[in-house]
C-alpha cells in the first residue's frame, strides 16, 4: 500500500514558468527588456490570473509554481506581490541591484491578502536560496585553489551541506503552509500559525545560506558583475518584508509560544497545527 503526497506539483506549470521566467530574466539582464515590457509579457503568459481567491484552494499549487519560478530567476517582477495584491505598479517598482532595510511598510489590511503575501514571500525566499545554492555548488567545482577545486575541501563540503539542509528545512515548512492553503484555504484555522512557524524557520535559514554562499564564493560573489548578488538581494529584501508583514520574527515566535502555553504542550501544538483539515471541509 503506497501513500500519496497531499500537495501535487503541477510539472507542466512548473516547467513552463521556469522557462518563461528564465527567459525574461535573461532578457532583462541583457538590457533587451524593460520593466513595463516584462509586466506585459507576464500578463500575456496568463501568469497574473493565477491568484486564488481568498476561499479558493485549487489554484494555490499553480500560483506557487509561478512565484517560485520568478523567485529562482531573479527577474525583477515581484510575483508574490502581484498575485497577492494585484498591484501591477508595485510589482515592478523595486530598484534592482539595491538593498535598504525596509521601513515600516504597510501590511495589507485584508487578512487574506496578508496571509497570501506572507506565503508568497516564503516561497520566493526558498526559491532564491535554491538559486544561490546552485550557483555556489557550480562555483566550487569550477574554482581551483591550492591546486584543486574548492569542492574537494572538506570544510567547503560541510559548509554547503549545512546550507543545503537549511534550504531543505525552509522549503519543507513553506510547502506545508502551501499545502494548508491548498487544503483549508488561505484563511484556514492553521494558516497563521504555520506562516509564523515558516517565518521563524526561514528567517534563520536565510542567515546560514547568505553566509555560506558568499563565503564559498570569495570576493567575486560580492560584485555586481557576478550573479550571486541578485539572489542575495532578493532573499534579503523578501525576508525583511516577510518579517514586517508578520511583525518580526520574535513576535512570530511569541505567538507560537503562546499557542503552546495555551495547549499546555509544545508537542501537542505541533501535531495539531500540522494536522490539516480536509479540502472539502
Amino acid at each position: 500500500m503506497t501513500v500519496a503526497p497531499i500537495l501535487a506539483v503541477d510539472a507542466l506549470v512548473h516547467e513552463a514558468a521556469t522557462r518563461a521566467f528564465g527567459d525574461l530574466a535573461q532578457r532583462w539582464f541583457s538590457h533587451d527588456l524593460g520593466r513595463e515590457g516584462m509586466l506585459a509579457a507576464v500578463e500575456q503568459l496568463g501568469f497574473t490570473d493565477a491568484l486564488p481567491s481568498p476561499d479558493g484552494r485549487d489554484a494555490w499549487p499553480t500560483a506557487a509554481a509561478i512565484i517560485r519560478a520568478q523567485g529562482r530567476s531573479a527577474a525583477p517582477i515581484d510575483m508574490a506581490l502581484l498575485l497577492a495584491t494585484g498591484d501591477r505598479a508595485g510589482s515592478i517598482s523595486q530598484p534592482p541591484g539595491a538593498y535598504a532595510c525596509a521601513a515600516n511598510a504597510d501590511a495589507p489590511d485584508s487578512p487574506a491578502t496578508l496571509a497570501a503575501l506572507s506565503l508568497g514571500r516564503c516561497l520566493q525566499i526558498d526559491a532564491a536560496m535554491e538559486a544561490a545554492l546552485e550557483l555556489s555548488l557550480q562555483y566550487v567545482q569550477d574554482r581551483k585553489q591550492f591546486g584543486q577545486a574548492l569542492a574537494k575541501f572538506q570544510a567547503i563540503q560541510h559548509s554547503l551541506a549545512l546550507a543545503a539542509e537549511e534550504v531543505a528545512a525552509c522549503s519543507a515548512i513553506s510547502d506545508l503552509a502551501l499545502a494548508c492553503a491548498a487544503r483549508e484555504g488561505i484563511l484556514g484555522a492553521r494558516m497563521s500559525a504555520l506562516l509564523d512557524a515558516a517565518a521563524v524557520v526561514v528567517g534563520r535559514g536565510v542567515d546560514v545560506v547568505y553566509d555560506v554562499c558568499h563565503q564559498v564564493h570569495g570576493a567575486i560573489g560580492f560584485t555586481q558583475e557576478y550573479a550571486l548578488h541578485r539572489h542575495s538581494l532578493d532573499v534579503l529584501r523578501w525576508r525583511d518584508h516577510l518579517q514586517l508583514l508578520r511583525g518580526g520574527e520574535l513576535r512570530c515566535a511569541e505567538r507560537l509560544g503562546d499557542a503552546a502555553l495555551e495547549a499546555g504542550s509544545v508537542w501537542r501544538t505541533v501535531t495539531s497545527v500540522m494536522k490539516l483539515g480536509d479540502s472539502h471541509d
Partner: protein
Amino acid sequence: MRFHFPIFQCPPQAEALRAEVRAFVAEELAAGLWQRGGDFASHYDAAFSQRIGARGWLGMTWPRRYGGHERSMLERLVVTEELLAASAPVAAHWIADRQSGPLLLRYGSEAQRGEFLPRVARGELFFSIGMSEPDSGSDLASVRTRAVKIAGGWLITGRKVWTTFAHLNHFAIVLARTGEGGESRHGGLSQFIVDLKAPDVKVRPIVNMAGQSEFNEVILDTTFVADDRLVGEPGNGWQQVTSELAFERSGPERYLSSIRLVESALACARERPTPRVREALGRMTAKLIALRTMSIAVAAQLQNGETPNLEAALIKDLGNAFEREQIAVFRALGAELPRRSDEYLLALAEATISSPSWTLRGGTREVLRGIVARGLGLR
C-alpha cells in the same frame, strides 16, 4: 531542487491511533508504572515493551504471518513519536523494532523470520547493534572482527563496543569480515545473529560519563555461530547494513531527545510566561514543525518502498543540532523560568550530559554532512 521532502499527512486511522497512544500513556503514568525520562537509548523497561507489544505496537508494519500487524509506516510513526514525546521507556525494544526486525524481514531466511520476528513483535526479544569496534567507528568498513567458516557454522573472533544494552538484550547482529574487501573495502562483510547469553560471549560494561553503564564491550573469541545464524548472503553485509540507515536516521528519535526539557520548561512557565520564554517555546515549536514535516516525508517514502538514505542523513544532522540548541536556549533563560521544578532541572542535567552522544550515535555529524555533500555532487 536538490532535496525534496513532499508533504504527506498522517491518515485518519493513524490520528485515531495517536489518541489511543496518548490515553495509554496517561493511564500508565497515572498508575505510576514509570517516570518520564531518558531517551530511546537509555530508558529501558522490558515489561513496558511487552505491554506495548500486546497492544500491537511493535512490528507494526510487518506481515501477520511473522507476528506483525500490517499497518503503515505512518501509523508506526505516530506510535513511536508519541512514545518518545512522552519520554516513555522504549529502549528495550527500540533497536529490534526499528532495524533488526526490518533487516531480518528483508534479508533473513524464512526460518529466521519465523523464529525471531513474532517474539520481537510481542516485546519479548530484544536486539543490540554489533557494528562499532575499538578501531572502527565512523569508518565501519574497517571492522576487524572475523568469521571463519567451519563445518556447520562459523567461528567469530573480535571485539564490538558501544553495544547498547548488550547485558540485557538477547541477541546482537554482528558485522564481521568473512572475505576480502576489495578496493572499496565494502566486499567480504557478513552479518550474524549472535546469542548474547551464550557462554562463549563475554559482555563487559563500559561506564559512561554520566556514571551509567548502558553500553558494553562484547568480546567474541572463536565463538561458534551456526550456519542458520548468518543473515542474508555471505559478503553482502555492507549492502545490508546500509539498507538499515534510512530506518535508523530519519525517525523522531533524532529530534525528540530533549523534548522533556522543552515540556518541563513550559510547565514551569505556564503561570507567568515572560516574553523570552514565549519566544523560546515558539522557536522550538517552529523548528519541530519543519523537522517533523521532513520526517513524515521519509516515513511515507519508506512506506512506498523507497530508500531515502540521503534525506535521512540530512534530517538527523538538523535534528541533532536542534536538540543541542534547546539545551543552550533553556539554560540561558535562567530566572526567566520562575519556578524551576525538579522535573525541569533533572531534564536539563540529563540532556546536558547526554548531548555529546546525540551527534555521535547512528552516524556522526561529520559523516552525515559528508553524505549530504555527496548528494550535492561535491564528493
